[in-house]
Structure formats: C-alpha cells, structure tokens
C-alpha cells in the first residue's frame, strides 16, 4: 500500500552547471499521499519540481519512480510513465482551444479518448461549457482548472503542482484546493509546492521545508504547522 511513488536522494540541480540551486535534496512521496514543499523564495521549491520533471539538468543525486531509477529523463516520457506536472506560469496553450489543450495532455497515451474527455468535463463543467474557446481568453482561475484537467487527462499516478493558488482570488483558491483533495482521494499522489504555507501544511499529510536548496525540516503537516522553529522562520507570527 504505502510504497514510495517518488523518491529523491541527494538531488543537485540548477539551470547552469556550477550554480546548483538544489544542493542535495531528499524527498519521498508515497502512494495516496499529499506532500507539500514549502520554504522562502529562492529555496528551490519550483526548481525541485522542474528537476524531477526533467526540465533542467541534474548534476548529482538520484530520482526513483516506483522503485526504478530515472536516468536521462525526458519530460515527455515521464508523462507516459504516469507523472503529470502543472507549472506555475504558462500552464495552458494560449492559442489552442480548451478541447485542444486537453487533447495535448493525451498525446502520449493510446487510450480511448472520448471517455477521458467526459471524465474531465464532468469534473470541471466550466471547461465543457467553454471547450471551443481559446485558452488565452480564460480567467486565471479557469486556466488553473484547465491546467489541472490537461494534467489529469493522462491518468497519472503522481501529480506535481507548482503553486496552484498563485494569483487566484480566495474563492478560486478554495475551489482549486477542493479539486486537489478529490483528485488525491481518487488515488493520485500529489507533490505540492505552495507559497501559502499555512494552507499547504494544513492540507497535506507530510511536509518538507526547503531552505537554500537543502532540506531544513521534515514532518507531518500538522506538526510542522505547530513547530516553533518553522513558525519563526517561514510562517511568521501571524
């Protein structure tokens, strides 16, 4: 049951060789878990997701998916293996319609498509309503839903989410988190990077606090939320 889906050992990575943003990060995501990654700006939270997804070069350490080491990761192959990723910015194809966006999420799978579309549309009715519109015309919240839909349509085992609440109104944030919860309940492991640390910690099973590209604190979400050091450093005394 609780097998690790993703395991990261001593990961070192960055955009340019010699300037590692991640300097040896360890992390485990088990089945059915929501794990959140928090930390100050520049701690390497988004970089970690990009490195797992093969978007930036890795200079050290190892990444395992379902026990198999990922070597020379190509992003598009990861999608086939069952990892989906929703980046923070530019997460929809602006000049494509909603339907075409979802179709792109299906590129690598040979599954029967029409059912998958139906599933996504019943989950996000707003997308069905606007399926012929260009994604560039959607509001921020709707884009986030489309990005989620695009990632989910490939039926992933793991979903990497980079600040899904960024730039959204409180109402839209609630909605997005509702969705994330039900996605998780349907059996998808979730790795969540969030700026809204309190929300993230109260939402997740376990949390990792990163600082300057290294693990700073790790623990159950609710423990971290009460941990005095974490509060001092990253949550503020609010």
């Amino acid at each position: 049951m609780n097998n690790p889906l993703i395991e990261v050992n001593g990961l070192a990575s960055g955009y340019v060789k010699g300037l590692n943003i991640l300097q040896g990060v360890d992390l485990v995501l088990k089945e059915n878990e929501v794990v959140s990654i928090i930390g100050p700006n520049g701690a390497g939270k988004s970089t970690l997701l990009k490195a797992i997804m093969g978007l930036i070069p890795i200079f050290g350490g190892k990444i395992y998916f379902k026990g198999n080491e990922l070597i020379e990761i190509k992003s598009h192959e990861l999608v086939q293996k069952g990892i989906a990723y929703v980046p923070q910015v530019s997460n929809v194809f602006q000049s494509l319609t909603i339907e075409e966006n979802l179709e792109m999420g299906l590129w690598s799978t040979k599954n029967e498509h029409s059912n998958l579309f139906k599933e996504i549309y019943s989950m996000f009715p707003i997308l069905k309503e606007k399926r012929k519109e260009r994604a560039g015309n959607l509001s921020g919240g709707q884009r986030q839903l489309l990005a989620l839909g695009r990632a989910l349509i490939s039926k992933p085992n793991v979903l990497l989410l980079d600040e899904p609440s960024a730039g959204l109104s409180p109402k839209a944030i609630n909605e997005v988190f509702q969705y994330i919860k039900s996605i998780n309940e349907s059996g998808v492991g979730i790795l969540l990077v969030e700026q809204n640390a309190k929300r993230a910690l109260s939402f997740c099973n376990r949390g990792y606090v990163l600082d300057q590209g290294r693990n700073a604190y790790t623990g159950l979400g609710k423990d971290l939320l009460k941990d005095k050091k974490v509060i001092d450093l990253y949550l503020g005394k609010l």
Partner: protein
Amino acid sequence: MLEQLGNGLLLGVIIALGSVALSLLYGVTRIVNFAHGEIIAFGAIMALFFSSSPDSSLLYLDRFSPLGINFLTSVILSILLCGVFGGLLELCLFKPLRKNNFGNIAVLVVTIGLSIFLRHIYLLFASAKPTSYILELQRREDYFGVQLTPRNVQVLIIGFAVMVLVGIFLTYTRTGKAMRAVRDSSDLASISGINSDYIILVTWIFSSMLAGFTGIIQGVINNVRWNMGFLILLLIFAGTVLGGIGTSFGAMFGGFIIGILVQLSVGLEFMDGHTEAKNAIALALMIIILLVRPQGIFGNKDRIS
C-alpha cells in the same frame, strides 16, 4: 491594371506558400531561416534534374545527366527529397545547436552561412542559365478578364488547395495541433507528453516539403535558376512580416497581398520604365508596416518585443 492581375495572382500564390512554410518553421523553432530560399530552389532544381531529358545541356557538374522521368513523378520525388533534406538539416545542424543553447542571433548567422553555401553548390551543380521544365508552351486565355494560361489556372487551383490542406492539417490533425502547442510553449508541450524534438523534426520536414513545392510552382510559372530562392526570399519575408510573423493564416494572407501588389505596381503610371523597382515597393511596404504595426496585420504583440 487588370492584365497584371493574372501575374499578381501567380506571384501571390508562390509567396503565400513560401511564407506559410517560413512562418511555420519560425513559429515552432524561433529560427529566422535565411536558407529558406535555398530549400525552395532545391525543390525546383531537383524536379528539373528528374524531369529534363537526359541529353539536354544542363550542367550538373558535367558528370550527371538529367534522368528524364515523368514530370508528375519528378514533382513528387522532389518534394519528398525536400522533406528528407529539411529533416537532415534539423538532425545534423539545428538540433545540435539547440542542445548547445545557441542564441537566436547565432543561429540566424548560421542560416546565412548555410544559404550562401547551398546556393553556390547549386551554381556548381546546376545550370546558371534560367531553364524551363519540359512542358508544352501555352497561350494565355481570358478568364473573367484575367489573362492566364490553362496551366497557370491549374497551378493557382493546386496552390490554393495546398494552402487549404495546410490549414486543415494545422487545425484538425493531431500533429498539426501539437505543432501549434510547441509554438505556444515547448516546455509545456513536453510536460504534456509531446516529444518536442519530434515535432520540430516534423515541422522541418513539413516546412521543407512545402518550400520545395513552392519552388516547383515558381519553376513552372517562370523558370528554374540556381539563385531563384534567394531572389524571392525577401518578398517572402515581406509577406510573413506583413501578415504577422509566426501566424500561418497571416503569412498566407500577407504573402498573397505582397505578390499581387508587386505585380500591380508595374501598371502604375509613375512606375513606367522602372520595372525593376517593383520589388522595391513591396520591401518598402514591409518597412512601413513594421513602423506602424510591428506585429503585422494578424500578429501577436508579445512576439515582437
């Protein structure tokens, strides 16, 4: 004025096709390809090599004589060869450059070197003289007041049909949609499971085949020359810029406008005796468009700053 319209339509279709191919490649790869004209010429020259009679006095390095096969087969073979050529360019040259993070400007300079290199390879291998395909001569007839030969009309119809097909391809096929997806964001495309390297390769092949087709049409309407691609490249740039670089529909439209404009301007009174300057007018129009609407008629503003 009207007697020039026929020529305008013909030139328009050539430039529109060339612009679509250039614009597609730019959209997906961000390469401003100065060697585009040489791919156009490659198509035309290969078709000439396949179709001309073996005893004709084409140079081909004094060693190879033309093959003399059926014209339609020649056309298809040439277009396929253009696809292979484009694919090889991507695999052997542009993909390695991309993997080594070459900037757009450096790649642009490389395409200029490539263009000079290829063009003069053609000069060495093929005749420097303008040469026509072995097609019977036809007389111009009147179509609704426009003067064209029956073959011109065929070419126009086929040209338009190809453009419609390209439009359908981009709008409705999986690969076409993926091309537009990579154009929007190649990172997002790869995390959606699209192999962007593969799509870029397909784009190179597709764009080169389209360019080769453009060259053959140009050869049928006018003639084949080693530097025919370079001569028309600037007009293709003008068409692309006019329509909005990176948009296929805009490129079609812009290319067509440029073609018609160039030919119609021959009929203007102040152009009397200055036939060479007709291209200058189209190029000047491009500069003016850039001045007042740099993103082109259908272009997106984000693409220019």
